[in-house]
């Protein structure tokens, strides 16, 4: 139930309630008066959407093209897959059995186009419409349905029924111009979609993968070893598909469909196009065997496994020259190592660093996952005699206390982590200002390279220009030199 038009009303009823004559839209007080034992709960659209998402995941076992149909329906493009389940009736039967086992009642409709399928599911008596309905046969199937079956907004439906247009047949028989003028062009656009004159496309939740290999099990498997063995077989199948087009996989997804309706998806990436089944299986083994949160909870067992290649790239032509072969082999071994470590620790923990043209020191370097980053050609040119940037940089500069001769001069002594350092040699300042086009108010920094009496070298900075930006400049230690 939910509050609609200032009254608590029913928004959804289950099979038993429907049998007792309750329907959505009825005020709660009226319903209670009719059925005193009524159990009513508050509607929770957020949770319902989540449940629908889970059901959509579950439906991906039938076809990769699954889209939402309004807030309470799913649209599956089953063109070319029905024969896998013993025809269209078999497909619907299979879905109904599975969902009834999960305690979910299902209304199905299957037709030539999405609009007709949606109408059948919601208002049809018979779920499967024959192919190529036209003329009288079409009228027999659809003309008795209420106009709401067109999926029009409720206020338009109400207006239409006030005008006496209650059934789809009422609309289809009438001249179009006056109705369009009064109720908008949407009405006939939807009617055309229903008859199949126009063909709207569905927008699936996930883009369909390039290559897919899958296995179904008559009796569900629950053991990790069995899952791993089947990953290897799936990888074999996928490699055959990839080889036909001379391609390799850069991103793979393994979906495990559990009997209880849960779907587990595991992604792995590869830094070079992979077309070896063993390498693929090893990447997944890293993820599954890592003893981390990724471990599979097979629950009551897995009855469908699908391995999809989300991103395929053409394989580079193999090098025949002897010398190159060796370099390539070594690079491949490194790439395999990087892939395995990325799969185990996560791609953001295995990175390459690249220099960025920025003055602010913490922005002068970017870390890219090594799985994605390509090694680039070496940068040209210049190394100072003594390094001008520290080996280690603190993520948060650490405040220090300093003693200086004059307020804007270099420090004589400073205290960092409770130790006092006498500055024996110092170079600076190197003035670095924040980019004015981004944040004009950030204080300027004056960097100093300081060496203490024991020979330890530090990178210090003073924040704020003395006298202009601040009267009490703060000092920080930002990094340490080797």
């Amino acid at each position, binding site marked *: 139930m939910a509050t609609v038009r200032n009254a608590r009303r029913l928004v959804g009823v289950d099979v038993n309630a429907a049998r007792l004559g309750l329907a959505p839209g009825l005020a709660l007080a009226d319903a209670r008066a009719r059925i005193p034992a009524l159990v009513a709960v508050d509607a929770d659209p957020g949770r319902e959407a989540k449940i629908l998402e889970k059901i959509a995941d579950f439906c991906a076992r039938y076809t990769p093209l699954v889209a939402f149909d309004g807030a309470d329906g799913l649209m599956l493009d089953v063109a070319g897959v029905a024969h896998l389940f013993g025809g269209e009736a078999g497909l619907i039967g299979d879905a109904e059995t599975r969902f009834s086992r999960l305690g979910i009642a299902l209304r199905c409709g299957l037709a030539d186009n999405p609009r007709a399928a949606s109408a059948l599911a919601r208002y049809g008596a018979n779920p499967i419409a024959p192919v190529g309905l036209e003329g009288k046969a079409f009228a027999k199937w659809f003309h008795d349905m209420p106009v709401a079956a067109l999926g029009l907004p409720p206020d338009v439906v109400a207006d239409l029924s006030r005008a006496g247009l209650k059934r789809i047949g009422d609309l289809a028989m009438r001249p179009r111009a006056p109705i369009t003028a009064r109720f908008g062009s949407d009405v006939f656009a939807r009617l055309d979609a229903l008859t199949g004159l126009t063909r709207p496309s569905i927008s699936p939740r996930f883009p369909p993968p390039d290559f897919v290999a899958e296995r179904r099990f008559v009796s569900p498997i629950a053991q990790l070893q069995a899952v791993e063995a089947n990953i290897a077989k799936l990888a074999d199948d996928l490699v055959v598909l990839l080889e036909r087009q001379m391609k390799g996989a850069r991103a793979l997804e393994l979906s495990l469909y559990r009997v209880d309706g849960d779907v587990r998806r595991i992604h792995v990436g590869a830094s070079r196009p992979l077309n070896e089944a063993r390498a693929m299986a090893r990447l997944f083994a890293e993820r599954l065997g890592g003893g981390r949160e990724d471990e599979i909870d097979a629950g009551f067992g897995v009855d469908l496994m699908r391995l999809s290649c989300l991103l395929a790239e053409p394989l580079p032509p193999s090098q025949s020259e002897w010398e190159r072969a060796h370099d390539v082999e070594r690079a491949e071994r490194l790439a395999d190592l990087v892939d395995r470590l990325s799969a185990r620790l996560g791609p953001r923990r295995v990175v390459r*660093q690249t220099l960025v043209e920025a003055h602010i020191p913490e922005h002068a370097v970017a870390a890219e996952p090594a799985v994605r980053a390509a090694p680039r050609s070496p940068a040209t040119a210049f190394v100072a005699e003594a390094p001008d940037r520290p080996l280690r940089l603190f993520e948060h500069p650490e405040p220090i206390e300093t003693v200086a001769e004059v307020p804007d001069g270099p420090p004589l002594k400073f205290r960092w982590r409770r130790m006092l350092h006498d500055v024996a040699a110092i170079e600076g300042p190197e003035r670095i200002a924040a980019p004015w086009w981004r944040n004009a108010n950030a204080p300027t920094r004056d960097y100093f390279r300081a060496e203490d009496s024991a020979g330890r070298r530090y990178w210090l900075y003073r924040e704020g220009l003395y006298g202009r930006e601040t009267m009490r400049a703060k000092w920080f230690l930002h990094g340490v*030199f080797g």
Partner: protein
Amino acid sequence: MSPRDRAEGMARLRRAIEEIETRSGAAAPRAPARLSLGVALDAALGGGLSCDGLHEIAPAAVADGAAATGFALGLAARRLGVRGATGLVVGEEFAARDLGALYGPGLVAHGLDLDRLVFVRAPDAPSALGAMEEALRSGAPAFVLGEIWRLKVYDLSASRRLLLAARGGATPAFLLLASAYGAADKISSAAETRFEVAAAPSAHSPSTGGGRGLPGRPSFSVRIVKARLSSGQGPPVGLDTARTIRLEWRNEEQTFDDPAFSLPLAAPAGDRLRPARAGY
């Protein structure tokens, strides 16, 4: 033919022979190649560092962590100079937080090529050691440099595993024991070599305005705490574990110098990295 051309030519030939031998086995048993670090260190180590062993670096005091890092990265840069491959740097997350994270522009300024380094940030010490072991065993990287903060998990058997992995993959392992300051003599591990590194005052260049000078090149004072020949005999002749050796790192040539002499003590690395620019 300039000395550098000759060094490069030799390095190229050595690599070609190494490639042939890895494919079809060595024609005659040879002494394993060793990584030369310069006269002062090589003599004490019996001819350089073995290229299939485990070498530890410990800071001498709490504040010497950066010096130990600089020395270890010097070893890494020399190794990259003789072996054309990518190096792997594995660090425990806590060490990066406490000592600062390795900073790309600083590595370039130290003489390393960022394009030939892959960094791994491990959540804890066991996973850092595990990643190191796997990388060593694969034999793909030019070297594996690790940094461990929590030393409790690094015991004799853990170090043995690393050593065996290094032998198996013929890859050198450098391990920074970040929290072992002052304890370099007490650690027991299977490592072949252990260095204790402290910062040393650099050669200051005079400042134009008088007053204090400008800091110079990275300088270290290194003590070899432990050295074992990889063939399984005892320490090399002439090892003095009490002696500290002063070294200066020349980032352009990738050599360790004795600051008392003006000439480099190590030959420039054969296939040295092209000097890189600091980005802007």
